[in-house]
């Protein structure tokens, strides 16, 4: 067993275990040191992951674990996003009795997402999805005394239970069809021809299972509630990180499909439905966190565009990972601001914020404009790459639909910006005391601009990535 190939994952597990033990044996007021431990674990994991970078794309661990550019780059995105989430949490969680365990849950959820991104075996995929789900449900309902948080956790759990079951059924049917769980063998089995009806059902089940983690139509319904009801740092986590793993897992699974299954059309339809639904639902929201939740749904729709043209456009996977990275940074910046402002959520409460809290307001506006794709913020390059590969792959209509959707999305993002800039100020702005959330917010805000101006550096990481298979 090549243990060295999963060192990053092992370090993550050990870090989580250490944090659980630490939290069990220290007083609550010292629990913020668990955040430091979590950050150190993630840093170690990043270093170990970078060490894997130079190797050729390959499958390891008896072929169940992919070690290729897509897996490694998305792993880095997930880890950095995880670090930002951990860094914005301590002040928010300080008053919670179970403050320390929170970080262990975050690390476990990260591990699950990383497994999704690296799985090259259907069993491994199920394991990743389940691990990330199981760790995420309590994150959503972490404030268990608060009804909206419970509601969010419940919705998340119910939809998750249903779709995870469907995913498992799909995996079982695929096993029945090909007699294997490993991706290379499955691809071979598909290529030799098989029962198309059964294959379609299996694919539909697996896609449905992954749309849950991706918050894409039709399993998106949990997203707005989680964004609104769960603790703001947990909402930041759940709106971005599972998506990265799920999108890569979906891409990886779809790349096995034989050409006679119309999977491109299916993904394209899901993409259009998701982005349109998310945007239309966001239009009239008067709750900023709920609005960000819906916007997050629509962003999943954009990401799916890259999967549609996978295989016909050289840079499709690059565009996918790159877009996800840009989306992650922008959305985390927005949620960092919300966290810093103590989770304030009604749009009315944001009126005139530009006067009283200019830095927070500026960062929120920049993150929203980045989500729209206004240059030279980082989001622009993500969207540009997406449009570019979609057009190159011959799906100009899809790029056009996405462009129309972008205009629609501008409307609701601008409503927040306008409310902060043009209205008269509210007298007092309550913010979290301490520097964790504040500095995370500033770092994420800087990343929006620096990432845009230095897009080339990010490009180098994702330039020629491909699947090991």
């Amino acid at each position: 067993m090549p243990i060295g190939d999963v060192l990053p994952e092992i370090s993550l597990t050990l870090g989580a275990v250490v944090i659980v033990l630490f939290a069990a044996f220290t007083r609550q007021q010292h629990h913020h040191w668990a955040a430091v431990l979590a950050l150190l674990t993630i840093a170690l994991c990043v270093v170990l992951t970078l060490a894997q970078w130079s190797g050729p794309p390959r499958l390891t661990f008896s072929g169940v674990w992919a070690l290729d550019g897509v897996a490694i780059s998305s792993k880095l995105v997930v880890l950095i996003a995880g670090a930002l989430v951990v860094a914005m949490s301590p002040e928010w969680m300080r008053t919670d009795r179970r403050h320390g365990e929170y970080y262990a849950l975050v690390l476990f959820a990260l591990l699950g997402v990383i497994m999704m991104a690296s799985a090259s075996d259907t069993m491994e995929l199920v394991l990743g999805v389940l691990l990330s789900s199981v760790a995420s449900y309590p994150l959503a309902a972490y404030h268990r005394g608060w009804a909206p948080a419970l509601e969010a956790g419940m919705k998340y759990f119910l939809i998750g239970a249903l779709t995870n079951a469907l995913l498992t059924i799909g995996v079982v049917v695929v096993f029945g069809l090909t007699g294997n769980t490993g991706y290379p063998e499955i691809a071979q089995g598909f290529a030799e021809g098989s029962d198309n009806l059964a294959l379609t059902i299996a694919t539909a089940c697996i896609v449905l299972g992954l749309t849950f983690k991706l918050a894409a139509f039709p399993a998106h319904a949990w997203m707005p509630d989680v964004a609104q009801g769960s603790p703001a740092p947990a909402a930041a986590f759940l709106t971005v990180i599972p998506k990265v793993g799920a999108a890569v897992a979906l891409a990886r699974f779809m790349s096995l499909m034989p050409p006679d299954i119309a999977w491109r059309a299916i993904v394209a339809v899901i993409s259009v439905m998701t982005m349109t639904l998310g945007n239309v639902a966001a239009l009239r929201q008067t709750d900023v966190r709920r609005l960000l939740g819906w916007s997050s749904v629509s962003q999943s729709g954009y990401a799916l565009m890259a999967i549609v043209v996978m295989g016909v456009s050289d840079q499709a996977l690059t565009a996918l990972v790159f877009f996800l990275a840009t989306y992650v940074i922008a959305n985390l910046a927005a949620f960092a601001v919300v966290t810093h402002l103590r989770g304030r959520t009604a749009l009315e409460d944001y009126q005139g914020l530009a006067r009283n809290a200019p830095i927070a307001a500026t960062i929120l506006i920049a993150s929203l404009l980045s989500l729209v794709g206004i240059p030279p913020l980082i989001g622009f390059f993500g969207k540009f790459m997406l449009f570019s590969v979609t057009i190159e792959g011959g799906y100009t209509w899809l790029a056009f639909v996405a462009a129309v959707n972008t205009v629609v999305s501008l409307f609701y993002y601008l409503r927040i910006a306008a409310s902060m800039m043009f209205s008269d100020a509210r007298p007092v702005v309550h913010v979290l005391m301490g520097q964790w959330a504040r500095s995370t917010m500033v770092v994420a805000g800087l990343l929006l601009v620096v990432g845009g101006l230095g897009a080339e550096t990010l490009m180098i990481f994702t330039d020629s990535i491909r699947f090991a298979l």
Partner: protein
Amino acid sequence: MILTATLGLPMLGALVIAVSRRWTETTARLFAVGVSLLPVFLLAWAWLQFDTQGALFQFVEEVPWVPSLGMGYRLGVDGIALAVATMSALVFSASIAYPVDTQNQPRQYYAWMLFLQSVSLGVFLALDLLLFYVFFDLSLVGMFFLIGRWGHGQAQLAAFKFFLYTFCGSLLLLLAIIGLYLSVEPHTFDMRVLIEQQPLAGGGVAAGLVFLALMIGFAIKTPIVPVHTWLPQAHVDAPGPASAVLAGVLLKMGTYGIIRIPYSMMGETFARYALIIALFAVASILYGAFVALGQRNLKRRIAYTSINHMGYTVLGIAVAGALIQDTEYARELALVGATVEMVAHGLITGALFLICGSFWQRTQEYDLDSYGGLLRQAPLLTAFTVLASFASLGLPGLAGFVAEFHIFAGTFDVYPWLAVIGVLGILVTASLFLQMLQKLFFGTLPQRWAHFEDLHAVEWGVLAVLSAGFVIIGIAPEFLLTLIEASATLLVGGP
């Protein structure tokens, strides 16, 4: 370095104002005016250095930005860009210097104005398609906050409508830019390469779609009828100086974009559709003129004349792009005319909108019927309004005439019938301006304006500078024409 300094100094100035919390309104304003004048001097200096016998693009600067996407920080100007950019810088300085009610947020106001100046100049100086797009989009952001924050009436609504509507255009533009980018090997955004290679020549669906997207994108910005409907409201509710910038500079991005991208890069496709574009242009000319004639609101009326004037520019460009045998000279005339029209319209309409701003500051009233007899009360205001109106309606000896003469002289040779119809627009414009002057300044002075103040020193000083611009171009246009002709010859004569 000169072009980078042109862009960079106002941006730097904006940052300085944004962070200097203790500055008073006067300090902020003086500083902003000073900084905004630097690009004017720099561009004037570049103008003197410009070699009219030299290459198409001069003062080229190139720094790789995202080389794996073929994107770079590339700047450079030809005669057309230089003329329009210099005019834009001047209109910005004038607008910044013009007194306005900053609603207790002077630093923010001047910071946004300087930011907008920087990115607007960027649009004209960029030699990289993506950089062009970056600046094009950022100008929307700047204008959105200026209208929304410092506008009046339904300012927020106007700002929203402006941003959403024009953002539609810029996304189409983005899709088209990607189309152009994918059509050359190796993929690049370098405008020089694209102009030289003429991608997508030979027709086909792709060429048609890219061209359509480009033209709709720029038509919204210009605006050309029927996608002009964002313009009147944005103008009416914007503060006077922002209106001047909107009309004087932002609209030029549309017509300049048509010259720079579809006209220069897709010459063959452009020629195929030149007549259709010319028809839309004539429709804009007539529609803009007649609707302006029907307006009772001072600012709305001037806003609609912008549609009319931009129609002349588009007509000139369409004529220049029609590849009809043995008409090179006429086509060059039309292109020169189109560019002069851009410069002239920027100065003239900039002045007119600043005058509107003065009216608003004094009375909060744009209804023409409520005015009358201001001639005695405000002779300076009358003098400048009359001068700008006459320039706008195309009186010989003023800049508008030089432009329209070139455009129609060129059009007569290529599309004679369109020229005949288009000239009607000038007639209507004349009557609408004369009627406007009559309503404002003649007749009896209503009691409520008995204390109407004449222009203050700063106001008339600024207007005098802009007026000097269009009077000089009207009397001695040679300095401007030589510069533009140098590039127009290369563009028309080229493949």
